[in-house]
């Protein structure tokens, strides 16, 4: 099995990896041909390890990786890379330093015997899509960090692999450029794709499903909006920009999980039914104002900048908080 021209492959990975350092990863993901799935998780959770395992760069302790039903990696053997049909764009763009940007993008096509002229045309069109066509003849060393990342993305996509693995492909980019690329990946990639990202918008915009990995294990998986709507852990809730509280907010949600937006929390002058007292531990500026972080329970509260001054809130202040039950989504505690 080699790379097929634009034919997306089914991916079925059951990955178990034990590292000497004590870290172990256990994750299972299956993708339909053409499906795009996002992978999110805290730093060091094992996202890159999962991608490396799927790409056949990291040997498995147990499990197997199958592409279109064909085993490409198992604890016993790993198929040679050019037989795998998987392209990994790692956290490091790893452009071939001796080739120009265009030659880097041509590489995959040339290797698949596309004619020189066609490969060149294809490369230029991909470079144009990622906005670096005027840099086609530059050496990678003469590109900025974000430009390198874009060329590497073009190279990975231009090879039209059955499965493409992208490890934080938009991190080094400004929001405008990132939005453009997101669009391209969403619309123009015909490969099956697994995308590691730290940005919830990426997952929403590109992926159909989301897999969240925490500490080497899948903590939640499902359709992106559903995961964000019903976050199973505090980390997932924070990704979705929500509070996730299991106790301590006025007793009303005993035995339940309360999910609500930081903007929906109100600061009261006086205690009332369903309100609770909490101490401010941290202030964080946001685009629209300030986010207060309070402890026991850990709740984030968004307020306008003017409110902050008016109420004389600082770290250490104790506040009376309340959230309209209508704005709260409750889940049964698992």
């Amino acid at each position: 099995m080699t790379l097929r021209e634009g034919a997306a492959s089914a991916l079925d990975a059951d990955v178990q990896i034990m590292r000497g350092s004590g870290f172990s990863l256990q994750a299972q993901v299956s993708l339909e041909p053409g499906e795009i799935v996002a992978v999110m998780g805290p730093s060091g959770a094992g996202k890159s390890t999962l991608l490396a395992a799927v790409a056949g760069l990291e040997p498995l302790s147990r499990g197997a990786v199958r592409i279109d039903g064909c085993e490409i990696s198992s604890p016993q053997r790993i198929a040679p890379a050019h037989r795998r049909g998987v392209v990994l764009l790692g956290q490091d763009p790893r452009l071939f330093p001796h080739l120009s940007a265009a030659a880097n993008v041509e590489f995959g096509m040339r290797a698949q015997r596309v004619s020189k002229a066609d490969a060149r045309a294809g490369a230029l069109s991909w470079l144009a899509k990622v906005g670096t066509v005027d840099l086609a003849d530059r050496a990678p060393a003469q590109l900025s960090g974000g430009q390198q990342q874009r060329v590497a993305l073009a190279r990975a996509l231009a090879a039209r692999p059955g499965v493409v693995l992208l490890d934080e492909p938009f991190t080094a980019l400004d929001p405008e450029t990132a939005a453009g690329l997101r669009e391209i990946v969403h619309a123009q990639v015909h490969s099956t794709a697994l995308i590691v990202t730290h940005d919830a918008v990426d997952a929403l915009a590109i992926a159909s499903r989301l897999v969240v990995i925490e500490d080497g294990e899948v903590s939640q998986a499902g359709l992106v909006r559903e995961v964000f709507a019903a976050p199973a852990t505090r980390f997932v809730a924070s990704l979705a920009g929500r509070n996730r509280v299991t106790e301590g907010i006025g007793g009303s949600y005993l035995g339940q999980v309360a999910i609500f937006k930081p903007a929906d929390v109100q600061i009261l002058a006086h205690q009332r039914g369903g309100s609770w007292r909490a101490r401010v531990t941290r202030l964080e500026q946001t685009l629209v104002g300030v986010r207060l972080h309070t402890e026991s329970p850990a709740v984030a509260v968004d307020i306008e900048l003017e409110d902050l001054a008016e109420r004389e809130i600082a770290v250490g202040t104790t506040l009376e908080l309340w959230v309209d039950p209508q704005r709260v989504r409750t889940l049964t505690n698992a």
Partner: protein
Amino acid sequence: MTIASRSLKPGYVPQVLMIPAFLGLALLVVPLSALVARVEWATLWRDVTTPEALSALGLSLGTGALATLICVVFGVPLALLIARSRPRTAAILRAAVTVPLVLPPMVGGVALLFLFGRNGWLGQLLAEFGVSITFTTTAVVLAQTFVALPFLVLAFEGAVRATGTDYEQTAAALGAGRWTILARVTLPLAAPGLVAGVVLCFARAIGEFGATALFAGNAPGVTRTMPLAIYTAFNGAGVTQGTAVALSLLLLVTAIAVLLLVRAWRPGSVR
């Protein structure tokens, strides 16, 4: 690859170290100038333009180039094999490759004679096909290859190992087969090491004396390379050794010219 590497500044070598550095350079260069000081300029031109000298120089360059070519053909795969072996295997292979360096070339010559000679294992075999190697230009090339091959292998192996396999993995994932990877990734990335290896290899080949003298003999025009011509001149009955010094100078100048030429060819440096 990054902004830092664009810097024009030299590295951070303590300046006091320039003293031993220049002493080291002096150690290599001053003896050669002592040699040059003994050149008899009056007869120099005549000495280096005799048909014998020119034929020896031509033979040296020709056999040296051929030996280098053979070293590339066999040494590049061997270096790749070592670079990609497990550490223990690699250490053993590397030791095997280093051994010919340790042996005085004369012993190498004897070993080659024992192997390719009329009574040698291979010699007997070849003789059945009417092929005899000793005393031929082929023997010169073989002797040079034997002593020069380790240089190419060790230099190139180091470069390949330093390059790592990450780019090869990337290329393979993009669908490139082994040959494409070799031609388009591995070789270009390790090119500076290959150039260095070729230079060392060629240098050692055209300087080779001991093994050649024993294995190939010393027939003018056939096996008398520059080093043999120098030795012959040196052993000659002449009182002044002027010819030997002149020939040494010829070899030296040619070598420097070739070295500088090859360096100039250096392909668009990777780093």
